[in-house]
């Protein structure tokens, strides 16, 4: 958080059908529907999140990610980072307050990887959902499905990893938490963090820019991950892989698809970092174990199915 970028705040996904997407994210993942807007977008949040929304769904002709937003500490910081982005050579688009309902002014830029990101300082503080502000109970009793705890991170596929790393570390204050290197020492995967978390955003090298691999939501325990897997079967949801453990980050995980083919992850556990930690390195030749710690073999679909 060296530059004032605090955490992932939201992600806007394109879906082919809004109602089936809503059934997936609300009823299966257990996100809370909080609002809709005149563009037909639906806003959701996970119950422990303090701001109004973290996931925005938009119906479109192709699935994928429109943008991912990071919250910065205050408006002064937003102004400073905007100038830093411009000085670095980024094209900036300012989106006025209220374009996303309840969110302040957003500053959007495109990373060299082709993905759109944005920064914002203000979003309506609605508090954790379903629990009181004073003497809060452990959890709300009327959560649905997987009872997702929070929007945690997203993984992007694209090229220009070094330039993207540069932008995220030098301008935005992320640090490299974990990486995958090939035999030549070229970084083919980079996990970037703002906090003690294993990752807040990650990039894997792919020849085509701007592709989306998955959006990830945090669960509390391994038991919750198994329960999520049960729900995936009960709803005949298309599964990708898991439940298993990652080598990278050591998180316990399951991957599946929303009805439009956007990949989702729910996970628990995983490594932590402090400022004195060195980046963790995996070798590309051991990518099978790095990604799927138990099978130690890559599921090709995991590498090639993108939206």
């Amino acid at each position: 958080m060296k530059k004032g970028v605090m955490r992932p705040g939201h992600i806007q996904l394109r879906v082919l059908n809004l109602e089936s997407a809503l059934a997936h994210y609300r009823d299966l993942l257990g996100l809370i529907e909080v609002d809709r807007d005149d563009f037909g977008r639906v806003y959701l949040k996970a119950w422990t999140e303090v701001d109004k929304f973290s996931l925005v769904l938009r119906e479109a002709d192709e699935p994928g990610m429109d943008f991912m937003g990071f919250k910065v500490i205050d408006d002064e910081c937003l102004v400073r980072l905007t100038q830093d982005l411009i000085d670095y050579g980024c094209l900036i688009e300012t989106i006025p307050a209220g374009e996303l309902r309840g969110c302040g002014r957003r500053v959007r830029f495109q990373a060299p990887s082709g993905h759109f990101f944005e920064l914002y300082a203000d979003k309506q503080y609605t508090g954790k959902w379903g629990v009181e502000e004073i003497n809060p109970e452990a959890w709300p009793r009327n959560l649905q499905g997987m009872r997702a705890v929070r929007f945690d991170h997203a993984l992007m596929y694209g090229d220009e990893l070094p330039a993207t790393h540069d932008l995220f570390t030098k301008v935005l204050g992320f640090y490299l938490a974990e990486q995958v290197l090939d035999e030549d020492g070229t970084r083919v995967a980079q996990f970037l963090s703002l906090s003690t978390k294993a990752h807040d955003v990650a990039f894997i090298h792919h020849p085509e820019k701007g592709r989306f691999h998955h959006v990830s939501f945090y669960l509390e325990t391994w038991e919750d991950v198994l329960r999520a897997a049960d729900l995936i079967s009960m709803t005949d949801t298309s599964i990708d892989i898991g439940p298993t453990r990652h080598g990278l980050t050591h998180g316990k995980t399951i991957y599946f698809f929303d009805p439009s083919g956007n990949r989702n992850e729910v996970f628990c556990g995983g490594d932590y970092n402090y400022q004195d930690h060195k980046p963790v390195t995996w070798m590309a030749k051991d990518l099978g174990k790095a990604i799927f710690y138990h099978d130690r073999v890559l599921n090709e679909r995991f590498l090639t199915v993108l939206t």
Partner: protein
Amino acid sequence: MNSAGYEVCEVLSGQSFRCAEGQSVLQAMEAQGKRCVPVGCRGGGCGLCKVRVLGGDYRRGRMSCHHVPPELASQGLALACQVFPQSDLSIECLRRNGEGDKNNKMKQEVPS
């Protein structure tokens, strides 16, 4: 599966399988253990199961315009997970030449 439904034939592999009313071509293929079309997201989004429908009637579900541009839909281009047969169908798997998937190693499953 019994004889109800429609016969779907993938011409490159010569494999055929039965598809029930309301079932997608990809669902039917997977249910019968055939592997003539690669399976991705099963949601019309990722483009992995792209096929050309060579003959027969079918209903189309929603599919990503990134993989199936509307102008090509009339030429039978489709994603098998979103093709719902309404007669016997012959399809051709287009996986070998699909764009944007150059590093997909599943292509070996499609005989050339």
